[in-house]
C-alpha cells in the first residue's frame, strides 16, 4: 500500500496544493466581502425583484422577509466558485482509476505488480478522502481567518461551521463515490468526466427548479444538493445528521459498487 500511496502523492500533490490554495483564497475573499454585499443586497433586491425567487431557489430558503446574515453566510458555501473548485478536483481525482489509467495505458504497469485491484481501489480512496479533507480544510481555514475580522454578529458559530463542514464533506463523498462508480465502468477519462458533469448539472438544476416548480419537487430527492443546506444549518443551529447519513449512504453504495465492478471486470488497453 505504501508504494501505491507514494505514487498517488507524487501525482496529485501539485493539483491538490493549487485547489487548496484557491479554495482557501476564495473562501477568504467571499467571507471578507460579506458585510459589503449584505449592505447592498436589500437595495439590489429592490431594484431587481425578479432575482429574489432565483436566489431563494439557489440557497434553498425563502428570502421574502429579507436577506439575513445567516443566509449570506450559507450562500458562501453554495457559491458556484466554491462548488466548482471542489468538484473539479473531485472529477479529476475520482476518474483516475481505472478510467484514466486505462485511457493512457499505464494500468498495465500497475496491474503487472503484485497488488490486488481492490487494494488499488482502496489506496485511491485513501488519497481521495485525504485530499478532500485537505481542500475542504483549507476552505474552512480561509473562512475562519476572514471571519475573525467580521463583527461578532456576522460571525457564524463554530458549531454551525462544523455542521456545514461535515455536510460539505458528505457532499464530497457522495459525488466522489458516484464518480468512482462511473470510472469503474469506463475506459476513457473524458467520458467519465463528461457523465459526471452531466449528473452534477442535472442534480444542481433539479434542486434549483424544485424550489419554485412543483413537478420538479417530486424528483428533488434524486439530487445530492437536496441534502446540502448550509443556510438551514446556520439558521437552525442543528447538526444535519439526516443529510449527512443520506449523502454518506449514497457515496458508500456507489463506491462499493464501483470497487466490485473494478474487481471483476476485464481491463483492456489495446
Amino acid at each position, binding site marked *: 500500500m505504501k508504494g501505491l500511496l507514494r505514487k498517488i502523492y507524487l501525482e496529485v500533490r501539485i493539483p491538490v496544493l493549487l485547489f487548496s490554495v484557491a479554495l482557501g483564497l476564495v473562501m477568504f475573499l467571499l467571507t471578507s466581502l460579506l458585510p459589503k454585499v449584505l449592505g447592498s443586497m436589500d437595495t439590489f433586491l429592490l431594484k431587481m425583484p425578479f432575482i429574489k425567487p432565483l436566489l431563494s431557489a439557489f440557497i434553498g430558503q425563502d428570502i421574502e422577509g429579507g436577506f439575513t446574515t445567516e443566509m449570506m453566510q450559507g450562500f458562501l458555501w453554495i457559491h458556484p466558485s466554491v462548488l466548482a473548485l471542489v468538484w473539479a478536483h473531485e472529477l479529476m481525482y475520482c476518474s483516475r482509476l481505472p478510467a484514466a489509467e486505462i485511457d493512457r*495505458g*499505464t494500468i*498495465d*504497469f500497475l496491474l503487472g*505488480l*503484485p497488488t490486488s485491484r481492490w487494494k488499488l481501489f482502496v489506496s485511491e480512496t485513501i488519497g481521495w478522502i485525504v485530499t478532500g479533507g485537505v481542500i475542504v480544510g483549507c476552505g474552512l481555514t480561509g473562512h475562519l481567518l476572514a471571519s475573525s475580522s467580521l463583527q461578532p454578529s456576522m460571525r457564524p458559530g463554530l458549531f454551525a461551521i462544523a455542521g456545514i463542514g461535515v455536510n460539505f464533506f458528505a457532499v464530497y463523498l457522495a459525488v466522489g463515490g458516484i464518480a468512482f462508480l462511473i470510472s469503474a465502468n469506463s475506459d476513457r477519462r473524458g467520458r467519465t468526466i463528461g457523465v459526471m458533469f452531466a449528473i452534477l448539472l442535472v442534480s444542481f438544476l433539479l434542486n434549483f427548479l424544485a424550489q419554485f416548480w412543483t413537478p420538479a419537487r417530486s424528483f428533488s430527492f434524486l439530487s445530492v444538493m437536496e441534502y446540502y443546506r448550509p443556510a438551514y444549518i446556520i439558521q437552525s443551529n442543528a447538526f444535519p445528521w439526516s443529510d449527512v447519513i443520506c449523502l454518506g449512504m449514497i457515496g458508500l453504495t456507489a463506491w462499493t459498487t464501483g470497487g466490485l465492478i473494478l474487481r471483476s471486470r476485464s*481491463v*483492456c488497453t*489495446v
Partner: protein
Amino acid sequence: MLAIETNDLCKSYGKRRGISDVNISVEQGEIFGFLGPNGAGKSTTIRVLLGFLKATAGRSRILGKDCWSESDVIKADVGYVAGDVRLYSWLTARRAFQIVSEIRQRDIAPRGFELAERFRLEVDLPVRKMSRGNRQKVALVTALAHSPRLVILDEPTSGLDPLMQDTLMLCLREMAEQGHTVFFSSHTLSEVDSLCDRVAIVRDGRIAACEPLQQLKARAPRRVSLIMNSAQDAGALQLPEFATLASRQEARIEFELVGSAAELTRWAASLNIKDIAIGQPNLESLFRQYYQTETATS
C-alpha cells in the same frame, strides 16, 4: 509444476476475434517463444495469463495458481513488460525502483541499478523526456530487477537498438541458466530463433504449432542451390516432391527443400552435379507459410 499451463483457453471480445482453445504448457527454466503476426492473439493470451482479462472459457495457471483468482499472488513471482509500454510522465527509474520495492516488499534497487547500468539507462531522467527505447528500458529493468521466477515479455525489443537487443537476450539467457522461465512474445522470427527452446505459433487466435525449435527447424524449408554440369542438364532436371523450384538460371537451380537433408543427398547422388549448397533452415519461410494461410483465409 509447470510455469504456465493453459487448457482450452478462450477469450472473446464479442464481434472482435480474441483467442480460442489455446493450449500451452511451459516448463520451468524454459525460454518459450510465442510467435505470431500482429493481431493474432499474442497480447490477449498474455493479458489473460496476467489476470487483466477474464477468460471466456478454459483454464490458465501460472506456477500452479489460477491466473484470474490468484492474479495478485502470481505477480510476486512474475516480471511483465507490456507490448506498448506506457509509463507515468513523472516517473524516473529511481522512483520506479522505490515504488516497486514498496509494493513488492523487497528492495529491488541494487539489482535495478545494476541492470540500469547494463542497459545504459539514466536513472534520474523522467519518462516525459525519454525516447521510446529508453521507456522500454525502464519497463524492462523494473520487470527484471526482482529476479522473477517467470518473465513475460510482450514484444520487448520494440524501440531497442540492436546492441540493447543483444544485452536483453544475454540477460534472458543468463536468467534461464539460473532456472528462471522466460515467455517471449514476438512477431520477429530471428529473435525467437536465437533465444528460445520451444515455440508456439499463434494464428487467428489459435495455436497453429507448438514444438521445440529444433523440431520446427527440421520442418522449415531450406534454400538449396544446385549447379549442374550444363544448362541443358539443368533444364531437363525434374525436381522431386520434397523440392519447390525457386529459380532456374543456366546451370544453376535454386529450390526450397521441404524434407530431410538425407532425402536430398540420396537424390542428389544420382545426378550429374557440379556443386550443391544447402542453406540453414528458413524459419522465416515457414512462418510466412502460416501467415499467408491466415491472410488467404481472411
